Each structure stands twice: as structure tokens, then as C-alpha cells.
């Protein structure tokens, strides 16, 4: 086991030595071998992170390895050199996360409200009287009901709704207008 690790380290050491001397093929092999190692190390240290965040840190580590590859001496083992960079970049990403969070403010939901009674369709417990509305829509004439379903419930544009229903845009507009008027009257009567 120890021998395998030594062989692996020795391989990386030789690749880095060759990369420092300008051998691009060795450098390419080295970086590609480092990716799964770094990814695993980051995953172990930050198991709660998502794949995208882990990949960000892996890329930071690769950039750092590239930036400071002159500091590596082939006389020393490769693993501690890499581990120090990974540890540092993982800690750095944690600090960056805390900084970015401290600069953010929790958004408070300021809901749009209007005081007139007719705009307040919710019950006191916060629920909409959905049954009453469903019954009122069901009692509309077929054309008006179809217009409300397409334009208001399925939120289609007039053009799309006209295409879907085979009605003209003008008659759709009239149908929706009449349907809303009828619904308002029926729901008011119910109160």
C-alpha cells in the first residue's frame, strides 16, 4: 500500500519536473491526473457542497498549481505540496462564501396589497375561496368559460388563445370582459 503511494507520488514528481522544464505533454498528464485527486479531497473536506461549487474549487486549485509550480522542488514529495494548496484554496473558498453572505441581505417579501375589499379575495386564514370561484366559472356560458380558461387560468396571450380556440382576438376580449363582470357579480352575491 505504502509502496503504491510512493510510486504514485514519484510519478507525479517526475511529471511536475518535466512540466517545469517545459514538457507540455507531461504537464497535460499531470493536470489530468490531479483532477480526480483534488475533486475527492475537496469532497472530503466540504461534503455539503454541490457539484458546481466543488468544480469551482477544483479549477481554483488547478490555477493555483499553475501559478506557483515554480515553488515545487522535485527533491521533496509531491503530495504534501499539493495538499497544502488544496487545503488553502478550500479555506479560501469558505472565507469567500462567508464574505459574500455577509454582504447580502435577506430579502423580505413585501407583498402587494390593496385595501379595497374587492381586491382581497383571500379568507381570513389566508386561503382563497377556490370552490366558490370554480363554481362561478363552471356556471359561465361555454364561450366565456373557454376564454377565461385560456387567457386567465392558462395565461395564454390573446393571439395564442385565439389560435387554440378558433375565436377571433376581438371576440375573445369581449368574452373575457363579460366573464369577469359575471364572475364579480356572482361572487359578490354569494357574500
Amino acid at each position: 500500500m505504502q509502496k503504491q503511494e510512493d510510486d504514485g507520488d514519484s510519478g507525479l514528481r517526475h511529471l511536475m519536473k518535466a512540466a517545469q522544464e517545459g514538457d507540455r505533454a507531461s504537464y497535460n498528464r499531470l493536470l489530468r491526473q490531479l483532477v480526480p485527486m483534488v475533486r475527492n479531497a475537496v469532497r472530503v473536506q466540504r461534503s455539503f457542497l454541490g457539484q458546481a461549487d466543488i468544480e469551482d474549487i477544483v479549477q481554483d486549485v488547478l490555477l493555483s498549481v499553475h501559478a506557483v509550480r515554480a515553488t515545487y522542488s522535485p527533491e521533496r514529495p509531491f503530495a504534501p505540496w499539493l495538499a497544502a494548496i488544496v487545503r488553502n484554496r478550500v479555506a479560501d473558498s469558505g472565507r469567500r462564501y462567508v464574505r459574500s453572505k455577509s454582504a447580502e441581505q435577506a430579502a423580505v417579501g413585501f407583498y402587494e396589497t390593496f385595501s379595497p375589499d374587492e381586491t382581497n379575495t383571500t379568507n381570513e386564514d389566508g386561503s382563497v375561496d377556490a370552490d366558490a370561484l370554480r363554481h362561478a366559472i363552471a356556471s359561465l356560458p361555454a364561450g366565456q368559460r373557454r376564454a377565461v380558461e385560456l387567457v386567465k387560468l392558462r395565461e395564454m396571450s390573446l393571439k395564442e388563445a385565439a389560435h387554440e380556440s378558433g375565436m377571433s382576438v376581438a371576440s375573445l376580449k369581449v368574452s373575457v370582459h363579460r366573464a369577469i363582470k359575471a364572475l364579480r357579480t356572482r361572487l359578490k352575491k354569494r357574500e
Partner: protein
Amino acid sequence: MMETTDDLIRNLVASDKGIGRLPSPWRRVSLWLAVALPYVALIVIGMGVRANLDELSSTRFLIEQTATLLTALCAAFAAFCAVIPGVSRRLLLLPLLPLTVWLGSLGQGCLQDWLRYGAAGLTIEPDWHCAPRIVIVGAIPAIAMFVMLRKGAPLAPRLTMALGALAAAALGNFALRLFHPPDASLMVLVWHFGGVALLSALAGAVGRYLHHWPRAPRRA
């Protein structure tokens, strides 16, 4: 647009033209001294070595100066170690030893002054010229140190920059004592040692801005 890890590797490999390895920390200390010492020597010669040679050869002065010079050397060594990934962090404590001797020697000087002259031996007078002089004498050593440290890894940028500044300021203080008129130990402690500590602390405070890692573009 965020690039994939594959793209990043391709770009890094394409931009690689080989790179010279950094020499060992002790060798880098020698290189730093090769730049810093001639400048410091020129300043000392230009300002004129102070006349009272008796004081220059006193044991306490020699201990203080040796400790100051060793602080500069050890701080430079520790700073160069701090930018190499995987090097033992314990080496960064090395300057504490000569620093303690330097501080202890100044403390003992203060005690002697107090025993000899009473309260009069412990008066502090304003000497605002000391810190700027340390800055002037330490300027080139500090610039050389900064350039050399930036070639390393910013593993602990605050500590690294503080150690680098300590090295340059201690060397500046070593030179300053050779042409600056003699002072009571408390004055040296407050203005000289205090100046060195202040410069190191300032460099440490801005260390993160002076030396940082490259960053991959973030995902939106």
C-alpha cells in the same frame, strides 16, 4: 462564460513554456542580502558611522545588533519558507528566538538605566525621525523582499508580508544604529523596536491585498 475543467487544463497547458524553479529559502536569503546589503552599506557610509566607538564595541550593543541582524535573517528565511506549499509551519516561528534576545537585551538595558539613573533613565522623548529613517534604510530591502515573495504561493499572505517587513525593517534598524546618535534603551525600545513592530504589523494588515491567489471565473 464559465469554462469547463477540460478547457481550463487545455489553456493552462497551452500557456506553459516551462518555468525556473525557485531556489531554496536559504539561497533566496543570500540573494536578498546580495541586493539589500550594498544599499544599506551605502546609506551607512553616506550618513557616516557614528564617532563614539566605545559604545559601538560594548557587549550590550553587540548583542543587540547581532540579535537584530539575526532577526532580519531568520524573518527573511521564514518568509521565504511561508510561500512554499508543504513546508513545515514550525519554521515560521524561527525569528521569535533572536527577536526575544533583542527584546530581552533592550529590557535589560532599560533595567540598568533605571538602576543607574532612577526615573530620569526611563524618560521617553519624541523621536519622530526614527520610523521614517528605518523606512528609508529598509526601502530597497523591502521592495526586493516583496518582489521575491510574490513569486511564491500566498498560503498565509498576512504572516508572510509581516515577516518580510520584519526582515527589511530589522535590517534597516541594524543599519540605523550604526549612524544614529546613541539613545537610552527605552528610547530604542519604543522608537526603534516599536517602529519595526509597527511596520511589520502594517504590512501584515494589507498582506492579503498584496499577495493573493489567481481566481477562476465564477458561475453566475
